[in-house]
């Protein structure tokens, strides 16, 4: 009798264990289907800082914005980073607000410190996962294309209600997976 109750409770738990990851997937799939598409230029990441392994460490270029007036931001405080698209079609961050912006594109981020009246944004766009074998080569290619004088790398992001999901990473006009294949990696 007692065992029956335990099995029933376990089945409930098993259901929750399935639903939670499912909801994680659903949330991101909805953003990928319905979210607005933005292209962010990416900057090189300090090679010593980047973890090696299964992903390319990303850093969105110009991820600091003018400080919010009259409000002192605390470290790690949640902010809404406002987005504008320039003439070339690339998205940039132009400001940060404490209250949810109305009618403007934005992304939920955190303030990671202030410097020269600018707020550094801790953005949820910092990892692009690859297959283990191609990740190191991909990171090399990424660094080549993201260099200051070249800057021919961008990340394609879908955003809905401030929630961002990375769609793919582009270097030199093609997806990084294709660039890796061309250079003969991952085999």
């Amino acid at each position, binding site marked *: 009798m007692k065992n029956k109750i335990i099995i029933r409770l376990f089945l409930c*738990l098993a259901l929750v264990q399935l639903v939670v990851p499912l909801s*994680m997937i659903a949330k991101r799939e909805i953003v990928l289907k319905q979210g607005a598409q933005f292209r962010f230029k990416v900057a090189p990441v300090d090679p010593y800082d980047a973890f090696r392994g*299964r992903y390319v460490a990303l850093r969105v270029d110009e991820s600091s914005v003018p400080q919010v007036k009259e409000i002192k931001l605390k470290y790690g405080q949640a902010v809404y980073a406002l987005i504008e698209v320039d003439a070339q079609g690339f998205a940039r961050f132009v400001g940060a607000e404490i209250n949810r912006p109305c009618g403007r594109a934005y992304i939920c981020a955190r303030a990671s410190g202030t410097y020269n009246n600018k707020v550094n944004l801790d953005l*949820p766009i910092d*990892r692009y996962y690859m297959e283990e074998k191609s990740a190191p080569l991909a990171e090399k290619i990424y660094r080549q294309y993201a260099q200051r004088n070249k800057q021919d790398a961008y990340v394609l992001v879908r955003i809905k209600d401030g929630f961002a*999901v990375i769609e793919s990473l582009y270097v030199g006009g093609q997806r990084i997976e294709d660039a890796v294949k061309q250079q003969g990696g991952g085999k």
Partner: protein
Amino acid sequence: MYKAGIKWLYRELSDLIAKGILSQESADKLRQHYGEVKSTTKTTAMLIILGTLGSLLIGLGIILLLAHNWEQFSRFTRAVISFLPLVLGQYLALWVLQKKPQSGALKEGAATFLSLMVGASISLISQTYNFPADASTFILAWMFLIIPITYLMQASIPAAIYLIGITIWSGIQSNDPVKAILFWPLAAIVLPHFIWALRQKIYALRTTILSFVAMVCILFGASFSLGRTWPCAWVIIFSSLYSIFYSLGWLKVNGATTNWQRPLRLVGALGLFILTLTFTFRHFWLSLGSFCHLDKSRVFGIGVLLDYMLTIAIIATAIALFYYNLKRKNSMVALFTAVPLLAIITYMIKDPTVFFTLLIFNVYLLTLCIRQITTGFRNNNLSVVNTGMLMLAILIMARFFDSDINFVMKGLAFIVIGIGFLAVNFKLARRQGGAK
């Protein structure tokens, strides 16, 4: 009653009957009284270890096989595959619950496997959808999904995984004191299981493992979340924590101290000794300021209140236990657990020259060493004496390296300590030999 003790008694019985000390009847009565001893502890432990290891390898193998062709799969396929480890773990756990609900080993193994597979599944999903580096949500989701397993399957390793997980989470949140302090209520969720485990089998291996993991996690959790507004409060907090561990390690449960308390005693004693030894260095106190980074601007509201309350509770518990030991005349335990009190005194007097602070801790440590040696000597316990000698030797060497005494003197001091070691051991060995 201690299993090994009963086993020993049973082994002796035939001998005792043969020698006529015990009649067959009384021997049978003894057997009846204590009942049969199941010698399953070792096999059970092996079963748990092998079962867990086996299921772990299978799980990892599956993930590796899948990861090989990962890039060829569409996003949808990857998402579906991500659920495979989880479903496998759930199936296994359900099978054990239905078919072998009596087997503790199988339940422990299946529960551990499921706990790890929940993590594997979420991590596969996080890779498919490029989750950001901030792992706090991932860890917390994982931990909340596995903690019910501990209770439903009466398994301790998932509880240990949970404790480690929330400690890491609290570490990630250590910049946000209001969140970091949540470590304590989150850790308290394991408490009923821990008490249950103690009641079931107070001598079992898993309670030992669990108490060891819990201690390490509590120490880390405290460093992430406590004393955020008191400069250098950690000096008192950590001496209190180690002191509590040590006291609990000697607390008599059913008239005896038990296996699960051994890690408490060991970690407590080691922690207290290392802390006090650190407190005897002038350099430590002079540079203490640089160990006390405080940014009060980040600490506010409810987090501060909880921080204060918990810190005071921990210190009060340590002092209460010290008082308890003092009253019960457990002088050795009381002496060891006096460290938080001394830390509070030095914290209060804030001696700028640190002369008195150093004096207090040096004298204290010296007393402790001597007491340890004499206790061991009195009880003819060689290991206690040698521990005391080792502590004394470390203290003396520390003082010698501290000061500007020349090499010859240092060398001589080492020789004297060495001779002391040998002489004491020789004397004790002879005394023990004489006793035999």
